[in-house]
């Protein structure tokens, strides 16, 4: 275990913890946008910057780092709300508000940082995509990598290969679910689902007729896990139904 201080309060966390883990353990709120527990930290949004000083450094020497991916160390001192940390977070959220002036999440975080209106040139084509990279990272994590960021600089965007129908996509919706601003659009029906301009056939429960997941996702999961595809056909209500029958049978016995 490693012991460090966050804003002067001592916390003890596992050795492989990040500064963000430590701030949470200390009950201190550090804003994040591109972080998601379970995915490897990325350090892209830069909202979680904190000041940090290590043991052996000069008393007043601090380095600004991102809390999400910086490992903790014994005797480390973390300051989450210094003047320059707040000033940097303000610049970051102000810039994001210029990019996404109509996005509620960004408006809310900006307001928390005292910004009602961006001081920069608002995006003439407002978007809800904050380029946090969560969608592409979760897609990579699942092992599909159907979408990626394309172009660089401020021309960067998230897209399927050549902006066409993504051939590797399994229609699992992980990208849309993880998106913090609901930027990724999809339509869900009992028979088909459409995402990234591609239509997927739904796998339907043979008992209830409900759509469970896409056939492509079931095939992918079956192939990767070795579990028969039929397993994925069972909908939640089917499971509940089966369970209810079991319980009913038990009750009769008593």
């Amino acid at each position, binding site marked *: 275990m490693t012991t460090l201080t966050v804003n002067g309060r001592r916390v003890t966390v596992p050795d492989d913890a990040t500064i963000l883990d430590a701030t949470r353990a200390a009950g201190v709120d550090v804003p994040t946008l591109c972080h998601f527990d379970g995915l490897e*930290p*990325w*350090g*892209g*949004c*830069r*909202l979680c*910057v904190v000041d940090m000083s290590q043991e052996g450094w000069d008393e007043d020497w601090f380095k*600004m*780092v*991102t809390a999400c*991916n*910086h*490992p903790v160390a014994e005797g480390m001192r973390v300051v989450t709300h210094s003047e*320059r940390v707040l*000033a*940097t977070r*303000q*610049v*970051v959220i102000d*810039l*994001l508000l*210029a*990019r996404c002036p109509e996005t509620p999440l960004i408006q809310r975080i900006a307001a928390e940082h005292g910004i009602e209106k961006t*001081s*920069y*040139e608002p995006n003439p084509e407002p978007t809800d995509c904050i*380029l946090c*990279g969560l969608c592409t990272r979760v897609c990579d994590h699942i092992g599909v990598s159907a979408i*990626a*960021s394309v*172009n*660089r*600089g*401020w*021309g*960067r965007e998230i897209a399927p290969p050549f902006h066409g129908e993504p051939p590797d996509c399994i229609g699992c919706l992980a990208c849309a679910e993880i998106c913090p601003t609901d930027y990724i659009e999809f339509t869900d029906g009992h028979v088909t689902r459409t995402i990234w301009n591609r239509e997927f056939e739904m796998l339907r429960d043979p008992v209830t007729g409900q759509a469970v997941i896409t056939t492509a996702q079931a095939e992918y999961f079956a192939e990767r896990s070795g579990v028969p595809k039929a397993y994925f056909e069972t909908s939640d209500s089917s499971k509940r139904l089966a369970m209810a029958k079991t319980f009913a049978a038990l009750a009769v016995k008593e």
Partner: protein
Amino acid sequence: MRIESRDQFTALHEAARKARAEHRQQILVCCGTGCLASGAKEVAEAFAEQVADRGLDAEVGLFVKSTGCHGFCERGPLVVIQPSGVLYTRVKAKSVAEIIDTTVIGGEVITRLLYKNPVDGERIEDYSEIPFYKNQVRVAMRNIGRIDPTDIEDAIAEGAYSGLARALFELTPDEVLEEVRVSGQRGRGGAGFNTARKWASCKAAPGDRRFVLCNGDEGDPGAFKDRSIMEGDPHSVLEGMIIGAYAVGANEGYIYVRDEYPLAVVNLTIAIAEARKRGLLGDDIMGSGFNFDIKISRGGGAFICGESSALMRSLEGKVGEPRAKYVHSTEKGLYDLPTVLNNVETWAGIGAIIERGGQWFASMGTEKSKGTKAFSLVGKVKNTGLIELPMGTTLRQIIYDIGGGVANDRPFKAVQTGGPSGGCVPEELLDLPVDYEKLTEAGSMMGSGGMIVMDDRTCMVDVARYFLAFLTEESCGKCTPCREGLKQMLHIYDRLIGGDGREGDIEAIERLARGMQLGSLCELGKSAPNPVLSTLRYFRAEYEAHIHDRACPAGICRELTAYEIIEEGCDGCHACFKACPVDAIEGVIKELHVIHQDACISCGACFDVCPTEAIRTLPKSRLEKAEVV
């Protein structure tokens, strides 16, 4: 023939040297990219043809060699005749027969082709007497221009791989490391990290597979030192990498070179193939039992891939984007394994350090910046080209003694060092000794060694905007401050030069710059505000003039500048009339000419051609007022 022992290497070195000594005269034709662009290939071919047709190799012992960049690109194509050292500049293929007849056979010098010193107008015969060359000390570039980069024997004759032979047979890996530590060499890619410390950290990292990489992704506008080294002496890079690999215990190496350097890729490929054939690369190098091989990886032209973590991702076949480096790449680098990554110039110096000793290298330079440094001297300077000098040489010596001063004798305004993330150093700091610390203190940086000289016809707001535009194009877009910040910063600058500056713009720039410096993920974003902050620091009045007076003091920003003809100065030569691309100038020969302001696009073409300096710039705002009156 494969070299299987140190004795065999020494024998080859001696034999190659002797074979070269037998040539009574040598013609070295510079075939660096600059000279090739001005027709060096035709010159080299003409020489080869003449020698073959006339049997000159036997008759006068003449040997013709195509070499790498001599550095004096301004005057190319260059031809040096050895042993006399006569340098001919701007040589054309049609002069080749004359050079052979007059100089090689006749022993006479052709004055017309000699270099003319711009300072006193004197013609200089011996190239080592030319100020551009005389004041240089070459370490990393020691063999460039002297050897044929595609001929390994030629390189060996000039001492290539001698340092490697010493390392493998006289020194243990720890002793090699110690020698590099004594040399005090710091990374030549820009950040200036101590080479030996980097190696030691990699060597100490656990695991038995590690990598040695060479960063050849030189992408700064105006920088071409790494290109010249890879093109002109690829063996120095290979030798350095093999020695480094021996020191840290690596068996695999990669050279990451940008694909826009086709000649570098070709010459490196040839050098690697030749070195393998000779047993200088691959298994059991020189019979020492040490194994190491190098592969070339060609980059796709992204500036960001010169950043170490982005370079490694790109090498792995992933998108070239930086990742936060809270663990050093010496411990977790390529494929998360211990990795040493050094710049081309750093590697090129290692062979010389091992051959001549760390103490020798440390005897040059300043207290904290040892040895020599290569610079690409470009912009408004008389002698543009590639130079290598001891650290601590002043900017004034570089620009005036070696560079020959500002082109057209215009007043000096600033020198931009360190590439797009560097800064502009003003005239009052011309006596600044150039080293890592001093340049950083001045708000600039060493960077890749680019030096762009600027004269009084340079608007510093426009210069900062140029570098911002470059970085906006090249930012990878992963992190918010760099991606969005550069775009917004550029937006403010577009307003400034467009005459739409506002109160508070300077403060907004400064606030954004600080946020980018502190908040960005990698050095590109962190250092992107440097051109902005250094021009603000030294030329704040120019910014204020753009905002408050709607005026560009240098007379460059088109939206703010008007041109007019001074009555007393115009002799009616008609040059401006011919130069004007939009027919905005009226006048007949020998009479006063007039610029029609409504048609003028403020391009400045007339200003540049006027022989009597009868055209002046003035703020457009003043023009408008005058018209109202």
